[in-house]
């Protein structure tokens, strides 16, 4: 087990090392400095010309947001149409797959558009090769590029100069695709192909097993989807069992590649912030806070899972290998728990094990990780959440030393606080409000058949579904009959709000900050690169981002744990 732990640690260090290179590269890309991939410039020019885009025309934050929303609504309409009619699309169709009904189509389209990838369908039986490729994988690319573009625009606005424009959305978006996601995905896909991940348009094969029964083996263009699923903090797998499926994740090597892909860009974004703004200390501070908090959440998950389930050990079942229920044997308790820890803080939310089967306290930490969504967080979006926490920490911290608040030389005033406070209110409103409605319905109709486990665990199941949706995580606790109009539509609503409000809000703040005069640092200003400030930020994140669900957590995971412990 210690070797395994060492291996996982090395994997993380390796991913972080790659992320440093990647962050530096991204800084060059978005500064317009020469990189090795400049051979793609003609391709990009073609895209701009085809779209009638002037990439050098800088936009105000409102124009930036409007372009983003416009193109996102076009993708949404396209995805809805394709999912509704997938059965009748003649090509890339393995056959036998029905079109999605309205509520499932809406849920699927929105969940991929928002990088959530909640997946209330199962890939093998719910999607054709066409929709997997041209709709779902496509959305995984463009949604990830959308978040990266906004992240870049916000970071750009924190520069030590003044401008009323935050950049050009289309340019940021296209560069995210051509310079970041596509090259990495191609590399990843080829490597996964070599590990045996299928990439085929052949229909499913029927095999006769040794037991003498017939079994359909689902296959398809899998390798194209897997890298972007991880790189873009998407998490939607080709198959229902997600990354636990041997065709998505054949062995420990692919486990390593996939895990690195999950970690790479969220960490690289922090490095990017450091290089782009010439504020390496700030990047170090963010990296330390994020890594520290991630470990503080992941280590207890691992510890809980290794300890095993007391209820099971009371039945006389050996728990020396940890809580193996719902785990994939190839990855074991440690490998699964580590994967889980990474995928709740980074909203890829891919699964190699059944989160429903985790111990109650482990689910507590999963919920906290998703809820804060800023301990790395998603590509771009994780930084956006952290940016909001930074604004609030700066505000309180500056007052505490007798200064009018300023972030990186720009005064933080009424508009910035207004937007940050608004988002801080809307996030809990979405997941607590939706959970309240759902549990009230469940309570009024105990026979509605939503939950496979009632009681505290059932409460956790419902809370998890909504927190995961709002955070854009998309992992499911499972144990919830979620493909019903109620679940499809309510989660669609919270996913949509939980995605676009925290994208547009920080953009508005950035637009306002960028317009302000830059003040060079002086001795009296709150030092944003000190350990003390790091502690303040962490405290703000924990008290504002995490503590507000304490009563809910007490009724879910904590109540389940203390009742079990009795």
């Amino acid at each position, binding site marked *: 087990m210690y070797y395994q732990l060492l291996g996982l640690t090395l994997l993380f260090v390796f991913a972080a090392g790659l992320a440093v290179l990647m962050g530096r590269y991204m800084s060059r890309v978005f500064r317009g400095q020469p990189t090795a991939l400049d051979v793609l410039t003609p391709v990009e020019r073609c895209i701009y010309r085809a779209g009638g885009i002037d990439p050098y025309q800088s936009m105000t934050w409102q124009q930036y947001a409007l372009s983003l929303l416009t193109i996102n609504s076009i993708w949404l309409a396209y995805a809805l149409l394709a999912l509704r009619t997938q059965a009748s699309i003649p090509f890339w169709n393995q056959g036998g797959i029905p079109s999605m009904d309205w509520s499932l189509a809406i849920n699927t389209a929105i969940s991929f558009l928002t990088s959530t990838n909640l997946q209330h369908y199962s890939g093998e039986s719910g999607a054709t090769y066409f929709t997997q490729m041209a709709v779902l994988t496509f959305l995984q690319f463009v949604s990830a590029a959308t978040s990266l573009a906004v992240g870049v625009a916000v970071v750009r606005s924190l520069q030590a100069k003044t401008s009323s424009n935050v950049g050009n959305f289309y340019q940021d978006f296209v560069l995210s695709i051509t310079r970041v996601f596509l090259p990495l995905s191609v590399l990843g896909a080829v490597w996964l192909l070599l590990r045996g991940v299928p990439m085929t348009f052949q229909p499913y094969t029927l095999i006769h097993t040794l037991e003498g029964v017939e079994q359909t083996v689902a296959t398809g263009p899998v390798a194209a989807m897997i890298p972007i699923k991880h790189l873009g903090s998407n998490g939607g797998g080709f198959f229902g069992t997600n990354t636990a499926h041997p065709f998505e994740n054949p062995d420990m090597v692919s486990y390593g590649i996939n895990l690195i892909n999950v970690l790479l860009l969220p960490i690289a974004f922090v490095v990017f912030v450091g290089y782009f703004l010439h504020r390496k200390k700030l990047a170090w501070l963010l990296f330390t806070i994020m890594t520290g908090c991630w470990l503080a959440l992941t280590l207890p998950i691992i510890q809980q899972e290794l300890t095993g389930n007391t209820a099971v050990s009371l039945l006389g079942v050996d728990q020396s290998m940890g809580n193996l229920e719902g785990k994939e044997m190839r990855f074991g308790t440690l490998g699964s728990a580590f994967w889980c820890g990474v995928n709740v803080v980074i909203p890829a939310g891919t699964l190699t094990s059944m989160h429903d089967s985790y111990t109650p306290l482990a689910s507590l930490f999963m919920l906290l990780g998703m809820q804060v969504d800023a301990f790395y967080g998603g590509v771009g979006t994780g930084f956006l959440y952290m940016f909001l926490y930074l604004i609030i920490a700066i*505000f*309180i*911290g*500056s*007052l*505490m*030393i*007798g*200064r*009018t*608040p300023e972030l990186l*030389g720009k005064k*933080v*005033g*009424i508009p*910035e*606080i*207004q937007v940050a*406070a608004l988002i*801080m*209110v809307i996030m*809990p409103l979405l997941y*607590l*409000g939706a*959970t*309240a409605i759902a*549990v*009230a319905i469940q*309570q009024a109709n105990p026979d509605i058949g939503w939950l496979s486990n009632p009681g505290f665990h059932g*409460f956790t199941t419902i809370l998890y579904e909504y927190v995961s949706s709002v955070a854009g995580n998309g992992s499911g606790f499972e144990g919830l009959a979620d493909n019903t109009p109620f679940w499809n539509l309510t989660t669609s609503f919270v996913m949509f709000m939980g995605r676009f409000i925290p994208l547009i809000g920080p953009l508005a703040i950035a637009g306002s900050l960028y317009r302000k005069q*830059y*003040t*060079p640092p*002086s*001795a*009296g*200003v*709150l*030092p944003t690169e*000190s350990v*003390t*400030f790091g*502690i*303040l930020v962490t*405290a703000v994140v924990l*008290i*504002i981002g995490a*503590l*507000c*669900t*304490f*009563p*809910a957590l*007490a*009724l879910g995971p*904590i*109540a389940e744990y*203390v*009742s079990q412990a*009795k």
Partner: protein
Amino acid sequence: MAKQLSSPNRTRPGLFQKELIGTAIRESFIKLNPAILVKNPVMFTVEVGTLIMVLVTVYIGVTGDTTQGSLAYNLSITFILLVTVLFANFAEAIAEARGKAQAESLRKTRQETPAKVIRPVGEYKLDEVQTISSAQLKKGDIFLCEAGDIIPSDGEIVEGLATIDESAITGESAPVIREAGGDKSSVTGGTKVLSDRIKVMVTTQPGESFLDKMIALVEGATRQKTPNEIALTILLAGFTLIFIIVCVALKPFADYANTPITIAALISLFVCLIPTTIGGLLSAIGIAGMDRALQANVIAKSGRAVETAGDVDTLLLDKTGTITIGNRKATNFYPAPGVSQTDMVRASALSSLADETPEGKSIVELARNGETDVTRNLSTTGATLIKFTAETRSSGIDVPLPGGESLRIRKGAMDSIRAIVQRAGNVFPSEIETKANEIAANGGTPLVVIENEAVKGVIELQDIIKPGISERFDRLRKMGVKTVMVTGDNPLTAKFIAGKAGVDDFIAEAKPEDKMNYIRREQTGGKLVAMMGDGTNDAPALAQADVGVAMNSGTQAAKEAGNMVDLDNDPTKLIEVVEIGKQLLITRGTLTTFSIANDVAKYFAIVPALFTLSIPALQALNIMGLHSPESAILSAVIFNAIIIPLLIPLALRGVEYKPIGASALLRRNLFIYGLGGIVAPFVGIKLIDLAVGLFI
């Protein structure tokens, strides 16, 4: 800390004066009016919660239904919630009452006084003096004041010169001279003319003088929230909304878990979680900040100006009066070769005996303090005074000697004296020239003394840097404020004094536009600049500066241009103003942190209390070991209520600003108010619970 500058007739009131408390308690109830309270979103929601609890209590009292808890329990919660709102109202009311008391004593200086208005009669320039009440004076009126009169209104002298006793305003008993024209033409209502006769033009409408504006600000009537305060209110409203959501959602959650929650418990949880501590003290902090400015005898035109002062990056200070004591003083006598020290001192003293300039006086004083007092036998009877003129650039005295001869003594700048000496055919010793240059290089001014066109020696005049001023600059540097000395001296002298006083930069041979340009340059770099000034030619710079403090003795133009007026005319006042501004922000920041950090303990008190009856295992969360669910909830709300009055003194006095550097200050305040805010309620709630447990 800054020295207290209270005037003899306006002593600083204690924090809680008896008569003020009475008024404040009355005001606390008046402020329960929802229309007033709605401006404070945090406390308004507490009031709404109290109203709901009143309804619940009445319902229980009427029906006897105890599913929502016993009558006594609900009554207690209702009472404590009401007290919470009253405490918050009291905090604001006591701050206002103190402000009013302060303003009242200021107002005493503006009692109704008779004013002798000059009205033109007919077409002839025959003026007639008419006595009316000061309240009837209008802007533009001209009134007459003679020795013994109280000046009825603020104004500008248009004719004449007078000595005026300003002690009613400044507390300074020495009379000052004010005269028409120039920079000392302004007079303040309530001060007394001691001698002579002046004609004054009224410059403000009744009720619109700076003092009237400040009184309104301190009383809270027209106090506008500053941007920082509005942003903080928004943030606190955000927290309040989050906890409304948390508490409303908790109801269905608890129903699902078959854990009935009483309305009292839910409202208690809500009131404990929202930031009532800072919400209740916020406006008191703001008013107290203005009050502190007034105590320092500074009239701020807005609360924003005081806050901005806390942010100032660059401070422009005049050399004379701020960094150095008024005038140059003689510090040394250097005799020429072949002249005895006594001879030299005698000549110098004689030259200055009748010299009324401060420099001259200081020469005599220095001579008197020597080993032997050479001035004792000196006499200037029958002597002729030679005044300083721009042409001769020297002054002196001609003393008749018994033999009909006379002794001609002159002192002056080296080049003009050398001309006199050489014209008489005498040698100007090179030693004196070297000495004089040496003195100049050390920031001093050399005065060469001659007797009958022969050089006797050189007197060294030095600027005397105020004692303790370099410590003050050190303190400012630690605050992150850059100090700039403005002087008319040549760059060499300026550099020397700047170095000695410890300022960071200087503007030498300064003309008014140099100040202006310096301010502009700093501002383009994103710096906030503060300056002090009194003259009309300072007005543009005062207006351009982010914080412009005009001296009360200054011209009306200067006072209009600045955003603060210093009643004491004390040039070092800026430093105090900066500290008051910082204190104001710090008090808000630290109490916000304290308030939010309190939530951790309150969660651990109330959440287990909510659920333990139905889910006994959750007793594990009751880490404080509180007596019972009811006592836990009661203790939490009691703690939440009494922390407000406990912190009122801190809110009114302000959290002390320590110039130890931003990082250390953050560490210190985060430790005291952040960590303290987490720990204090654990202790407090436990103690209250021990007491409450005795009754339940």
